[in-house]
């Protein structure tokens, strides 16, 4: 367990802290905050790359505040992974393992390399590898030394969306399999939904809120909309459910008491978290026959005319069996349908729109 107590670091014009934070064993804490609010500084303080002005850092009950970097047993995955260019992939991975331990750790290394799907790269030198491959190798290099806690500083920020999505799932699985704690710094909403057990919001150098993901979402209408300054909002609709059917590439998911369908094959009983863009939800007054496989009757909770920065676009807040959804439509459509608070409308979206970003097999 990591515990940060009254930690303060002063810079000219900016003070981080006093900071108090607890991360339990096997917990992934995602830290969000706008640029310049001190997210990376928190990680650098924990890693020992910079010294605090006051306060303490405890790792498994031991005060490591003044311990040298190399003896802290902390893993740090940087935004730019900085693999050593004069070593091969394998040499990079085993860099932190003492020579006498390398034989004993062979199985563990092989397992980790396999789980990250980089077995085919181990004999290569690092030139010409893709960004995603480099991040996976960096993660393997960090994890093989058995860190007690893993620090990740926006490791996916420079990758393309496809690689990001793939890696998020892999990162969470690997961390959970190794049962270590992790502080993951980001300003992407999807990272929060995909990875977080708990979320800490850093503002002006202080922790504004620190809650379990579920608690935070329940306080905030199941979205991170209230934190648009701290995190890039794109999706707004995060839903959790259970796979009840998966046939011919179409999966049916039960969310509370309604069902949605999406593409892909998933094992029945898997708990999933999924994202749905508000722009993908079409509103209709009538039950119409369309190619879209998801047509859900909802009740309009509210119409937020000033909730979206683009002129001529409004957020329509919908309620379906206790679950809130946001649809984003134009002013013209709102007028055309004459939508008002309390009206019943059908929310329509294709099975290609929802995207599973998190899954737990039972």
């Amino acid at each position: 367990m990591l515990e940060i107590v009254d930690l303060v670091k002063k810079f000219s014009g900016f003070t981080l802290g006093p900071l108090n934070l607890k991360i339990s064993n096997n917990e992934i804490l995602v830290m969000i905050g706008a640029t310049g609010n001190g997210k990376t500084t928190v990680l650098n303080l924990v890693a020992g790359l910079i010294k605090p002005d006051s306060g303490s850092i405890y790792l498994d009950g031991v005060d490591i505040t003044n311990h040298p970097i190399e003896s802290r047993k902390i893993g740090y995955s940087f935004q730019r992974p900085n693999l050593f260019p004069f070593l091969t992939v394998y040499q990079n991975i085993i860099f932190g393992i003492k020579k006498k331990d390398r034989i004993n750790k062979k199985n563990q290394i092989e397992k980790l390399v396999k789980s990250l799907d980089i077995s085919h790269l181990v004999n290569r030198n690092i030139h010409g590898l893709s960004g995603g491959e480099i991040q996976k190798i960096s993660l393997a290099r960090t994890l093989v030394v058995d860190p007690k806690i893993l620090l990740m500083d926006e490791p996916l920020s420079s990758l393309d969306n496809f690689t990001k999505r793939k890696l998020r799932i892999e990162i969470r699985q690997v961390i959970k399999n190794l049962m270590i704690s992790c502080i993951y710094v980001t300003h992407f909403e999807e990272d929060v939904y995909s990875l977080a057990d708990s979320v800490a919001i850093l503002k002006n150098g202080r922790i504004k809120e620190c809650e379990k993901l579920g608690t935070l979402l329940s306080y905030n209408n199941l979205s991170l909309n209230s934190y648009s300054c701290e995190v890039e909002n794109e999706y707004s609709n995060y839903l959790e459910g259970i796979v009840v059917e998966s046939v011919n590439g179409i999966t049916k998911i039960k969310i509370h008491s309604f069902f949605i369908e999406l593409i892909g094959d998933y094992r029945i009983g898997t708990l999933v978290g999924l994202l749905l863009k508000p722009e993908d939800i079409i509103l209709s007054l009538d039950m119409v026959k369309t190619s879209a496989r998801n047509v859900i009757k909802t009740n309009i909770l509210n119409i937020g005319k000033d909730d979206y920065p683009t002129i001529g676009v409004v957020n329509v807040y919908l309620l379906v069996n206790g679950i809130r959804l946001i649809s984003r439509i134009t002013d013209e459509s709102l007028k055309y349908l004459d939508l008002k608070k309390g009206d019943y409308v059908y929310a329509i979206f294709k099975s290609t729109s929802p995207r599973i970003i998190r899954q737990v097999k039972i």
Partner: protein
Amino acid sequence: MGIKNHQFNIVMMILSGIVITFILFPLFSIITFMDSSKLISEMFSPPLVNAFILSLVTSTISTILLIIFGMPLAYCLARYSFRGKFFINMLVIFPLVLPPLASGALLLGIFSPNAVIGKNFHSLEFTESIVGIIIAQTYVGSPFMILASQASFEAVDVSYENASRILGKSRLDTFVKVTLPLAKSGLLISVLLTWVRTIGELGATMMMAYNPHTISIQIFEDNAIGGLKQALPDILLVIILSVIALFIISIIRNKKEDVIRIRWS
């Protein structure tokens, strides 16, 4: 705008051409004065060979001394912040801006038989000896080693060192396993530059030890006695050595892909 760019390019090319000609021109005098029938035998005459070997040996020792003492200072200047760093940064440039004869005179001020160190170490001959040559070469060559090595260490992204320390390596391990391999090319160039510079050292060496003759003093003496014609074999030897060194430096510089930045997609 296009014409202006074109004119700018022409001006730059003319100015560059003048400098290149200025550097190349003295080399043509070799052809004018060269007597090829005697050249080879003169190049292998015992006094010249002795002076050349002496220069190679002393400059190698000076360079090794600067690797041992100068490189750690370069690393400290590149990596640590401490009180007095500004002053030390200026101090290491001092032998470069000081006229070599003045450096030699100052060295004599402490190493001559009647000076502070010379007086207290009677058994060691600091002047008119190989030791004197090494002292002079080391002093004058020090800025080349320290400044070039400092630049090489500074070019190593500190995040590589941070990554190594976080992976459990000590400062020493990180220096040996990460910093040195990444700075290798730059450090090799600084070693070669220092070595070539110490071979060519004249002013300070002349003050500390006119005898035994290094190759530079041999050139000075031959030129004083018989002009360029007599000094030409000595000069040719130095030119051949310099060309080899420059060739090696160029190869290293071209291969300097150690500090490759990973391309992000």
